[in-house]
């Protein structure tokens, strides 16, 4: 097979081992955790910032889209080569460059796996706080692109609250450094603007993150309920009482049973819902908060509040939660996970609404989500071989999104917009809001060669059709 000129140049910019281009090699790179689209023309694995810059320049010469990619665990299609092009995988740039404990900083390459950073500093008593459920696989570069969250971001904030500085390759191949190793550097906060921009402004090649001290005490509670409404009312009451747990997660009965079958985490099989609550901090504060939370749960008819006694028990409770999306394979051939956010006071209302949607479309919907920040993850179960079910799943998801917006919420709390929700952006932003975003995107990405078709609505295809195409494939 003849090596295409684009590929030849990419090899020159890197080396032979760093470029995949044969169709059979590209197949792995036509999808991420949302959907599968089409294979890129090539996948490049640069080893240095200079190689990233060289690759970007080659692509620009060929007027070819560039799609940055981490571990491909994204849930909104951000790493999918929508219009073909060159996928730039940062997987080989996976070095922790520097750990500076006195300043509570680490400098890392984008391909470092989220959990590996926490493991690297754990013995010294530190960790990196944002903990997406995919943290065993997802990369910090991907986290920066998506501004990822996770259960423990309730108390400590999401990725953007932990990133101080970046090295970024711009679409023209220029390399800039934004931010610093300290907060408050004078100038526009380009770091804060780039975090969460889903790979549409630049390719991040180095990240300065904040490390945090591991807490002295951790307590994990499992509150068990016979009704979903009581569980959601508890969440609202905990917020209103001003208690901010480190994590406050909810799982409904359907999900509990699926997870229990898969993980044997010790969840009660007959419950309607549970809250998984984690408290961290000073021993005295944790004990007091545990008492107040137990009282709030009791006042909202929790059947039982269990406290994990040992680290293994805690670990098991969390393993169940973090493997929830995997466990659902026991229930359904396909599922569509949503990522809406609502004000926490509206949780009872919202869960009622979701139950109504479930009945209306005859599709099962499981709920496992970050209750403490009102970030829902309804899992709509369907069979992708049944065209009507696919249509209904998409309709159901849209109605749930619409309700989130109506209640004053957002269409995505942590999974990103990507190609999944870009056509839904007008639900929460006016044409004028979007026009400013477009203009600012152009400042960084004037040719629209970097990750085209993501975040902003294209107006080319209505969202429903796009999502169906991806779910149905």
């Amino acid at each position: 097979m003849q090596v295409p000129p684009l590929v030849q140049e990419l090899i020159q910019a890197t080396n032979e081992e760093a470029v995949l281009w044969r169709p059979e090699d590209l197949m792995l790179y036509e999808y991420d955790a949302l959907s599968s689209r089409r294979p890129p023309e090539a996948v490049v694995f640069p080893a240095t910032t200079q190689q990233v810059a060289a690759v970007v320049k080659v692509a620009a010469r060929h007027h070819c889209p560039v799609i940055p990619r981490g571990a491909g665990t994204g849930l909104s299609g951000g790493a999918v080569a929508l219009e073909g092009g060159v996928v730039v995988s940062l997987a080989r740039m996976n070095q922790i460059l520097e750990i500076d404990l006195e300043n509570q900083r680490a400098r890392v390459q984008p391909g470092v796996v989220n959990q590996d950073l926490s493991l690297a500093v754990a013995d010294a008593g530190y960790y990196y706080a944002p903990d997406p459920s995919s943290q065993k696989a997802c990369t910090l570069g991907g986290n920066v692109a998506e501004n990822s969250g996770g259960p423990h971001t309730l108390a400590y904030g999401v990725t953007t609250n932990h990133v101080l500085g970046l090295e970024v390759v711009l679409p023209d191949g220029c390399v800039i450094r934004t931010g610093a190793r300290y907060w408050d550097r004078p100038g526009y906060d380009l770091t804060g603007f780039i975090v969460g921009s889903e790979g549409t402004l630049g390719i991040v090649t180095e990240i300065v993150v904040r490390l945090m001290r591991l807490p002295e005490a951790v307590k994990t509670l499992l509150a068990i309920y016979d009704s979903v409404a009581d569980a959601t009312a508890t969440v609202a009451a905990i917020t209103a009482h001003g208690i901010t747990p480190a994590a406050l997660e909810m799982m409904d009965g359907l999900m509990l049973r699926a997870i229990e079958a898969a993980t044997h985490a010790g969840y009660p099989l007959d419950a309607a819902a549970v809250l998984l609550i984690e408290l961290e901090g000073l021993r005295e504060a944790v004990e007091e908060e545990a008492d107040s939370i137990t009282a709030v749960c009791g006042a909202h008819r929790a059947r039982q509040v269990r406290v994990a006694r040992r680290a293994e028990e805690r670990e098991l409770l969390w393993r169940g939660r973090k493997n929830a999306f995997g466990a659902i394979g026991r229930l359904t051939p396909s599922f569509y996970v949503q990522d809406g956010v609502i004000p926490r006071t509206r949780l009872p209302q919202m869960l009622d609404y979701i139950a109504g949607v479930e009945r209306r479309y005859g599709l099962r919907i499981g709920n496992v989500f970050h209750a403490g920040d009102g970030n829902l993850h309804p899992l709509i179960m369907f069979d992708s071989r049944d065209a009507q079910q696919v249509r209904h799943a998409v309709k159901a998801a849209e109605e749930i999104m619409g309700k989130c917006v109506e209640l004053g919420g957002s269409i995505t709390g942590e999974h990103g917009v990507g190609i999944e929700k870009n056509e839904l952006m007008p639900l929460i932003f006016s044409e004028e809001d979007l026009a400013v975003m477009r203009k600012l995107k152009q400042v960084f990405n004037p040719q629209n060669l970097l990750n085209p078709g993501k975040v902003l609505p294209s107006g080319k295809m209505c969202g429903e059709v796009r999502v169906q195409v991806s779910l149905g494939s």
Partner: protein
Amino acid sequence: MATATQAGVAKLASIVGEARVLTDAASCQACAVHGRVPRCVVFAPSAGQAAQVLQCAAEQDLAVIPRRNGTKIETGNPPRRYDVALSLKEMNQVWYYEPDDLVISVEAGMKWGDLQHFLSRRGLWVPLDPPGGDKASVGGCAAAGASGPLRLRYGTLRDMVLGMTMATTEGKVVKTGGRVVKNVAGYDLAKLLIGSWGTLGVITEVTLKLFPRPPQTRTYAAAVASLEEARQLRRRLLESPLAPQRMVLLDSTTARLAGAALFGDERFQVWIEAAGSERVLRRYDAELSGWLPKAHSLGVNESNWASLADYPALWLGAWRGAAVLKASLPVAATETFIGQAEEEARASEARLACIGMTAVGVVRLALAASLPPDRLASLIERLRTQAVQLGGSLIVERCPADVREHVDAWGPPGDDLQMMRRMKQAWDPKGILSPGRFVGGI
């Protein structure tokens, strides 16, 4: 030119009404920035009208500086030109308040003190103690990225702002973020506006995350004999499980100005404020008494912290004509920097006062000297060089006009200046918003 400007002013009056445009000398003089006096003061009653004023100003090529009480207006370089002071004084309403959800949206002109007072009725607060204290405005604090010692525990506005509305020079009112605590839909324009010092757009509404006020607080004050001792203390605190709300290292002059008694001949005092229940505070009592053998309360309370928050008033009241500086540094370099600053000041026979938020990497300094302006400026530059060599930066928050001619407010920009300029160009193509006041001449 004068007639063109008069015509422009008349157009502004047609947007907000004549009563909201002041052109008398006293009103304009009161809004002067670094000696530059605007031609008029315009009061915007709403975000929409603020946007129309900006659009009109852009069409007429009138330079605008947004303001409220001017608590931070002296920070920054002198404007290249200045025609319109855009006051947000009338925009002080609460637009959305969901106390059970811990979220509030307020207009940018609301005073910080009024916001906190409003929230205190439900036992809530925004845990931020910005310079300027109660008189600072919500929008001004956001535009300046202002923060104080409370950031040790709670972070800064960067971490607390959930959404924002701003008026652009194209005459649009643009929204970013939302009213929920977690949201990644679209580009985060609020990050750009926070700390942009009024050069991109005018912040008109801010949505904030709220926190419950802690049930009790307690401040521990102790004498610190040397910077080495201060360094050990800071390390020990950051490595401990304790999470106090605030910690500052003060020289004895500043401690005295802030109303604290002195132990005797100490060089520095450290104040550590813990928050929580009685049981939690007892833990602090036990731990800190071991670390700070000479600690006692010295009666340091909320009012001392409040005077410290208004440090420019504190210092300038005592040392007229002092320069007020802020260094931002890696935490580990803070004590070293204070030591170097002391040496430089001593060599130039200048007096130095400091508030070191050493556990978060911010050191505020006051520098007073009977030096000629250019020599004081070069002393500031030497301190800046040291901050930069230690991996940080230094900005001039206040200084006498004749000194300012010799020293840039922000210091050297980085290799992202080009992108910052292009950002500015995208937001404000005519360059009418606070022209010349920001980093790199933006």
